[in-house]
């Protein structure tokens, strides 16, 4: 069983790797906005995250779930709901 911390870290590393971001995981706050003024991601990056998060954590992210990309916390919340064992 993974610790709570590990899932947040895994999500951050997944985002950084997929988008080739020039930041380290500890520079991304769990509740900071990822888009716009936050990490500066755009709507095309969101599609990339659907692919990357979906593959990494084996979850299906539908059109109605796109709101989860507001923050790392929201993404983790979604993953934990879909995959309670993580």
């Amino acid at each position: 069983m993974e610790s709570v911390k590990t899932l947040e870290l895994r999500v951050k590393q997944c985002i950084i790797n997929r988008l080739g971001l020039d930041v380290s995981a500890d520079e991304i706050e769990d509740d900071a906005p990822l888009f716009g003024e936050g990490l500066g991601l755009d709507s095309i990056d969101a599609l990339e995250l659907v692919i990357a998060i979906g593959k990494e954590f084996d979850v299906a992210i539908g059109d109605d779930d796109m709101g989860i990309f507001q923050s790392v916390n929201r993404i983790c919340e979604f993953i934990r709901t879909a995959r309670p064992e993580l």
Partner: protein
Amino acid sequence: MDIQAIQERINQRYPFLLIDRVLEVEPFVRSVAYKNVTINEAFFAGHFPDNPVMPGVLIIESMSQAGAMMYPKAKNGYIAGIDKVKFLGLVRPGDQLVTEAVNIQKAGAFAKVQVTARVDGKDVARAQITYYMEFEEEKE
């Protein structure tokens, strides 16, 4: 799917309609379409004199139109991103440029496909193309 059906699906027209026929469509999964390339194409006059080669940007456009066939008719569709592009061979007059497109992911107004273009079964280009599609306001 013939040229009439293609024009019902996408808005590109002469001189920018770069597929002639659709061979296979599995909605949201896969599409295969081709363009017959002839010496009468206007771009061959300058690309290049005495050495006609289809421009890579137009190969990408043809691949993009082929991939768009698997999605429903959008009011407008645009290319939002192109990744991992490789041109592996020259496309010349007389070639039939066949593109196979496979859906990678659709999310909201965006969709991403893996496309491979072939001539005589040999890969001439590969890419991943992201589309942005505008749909009519849905009536509830």
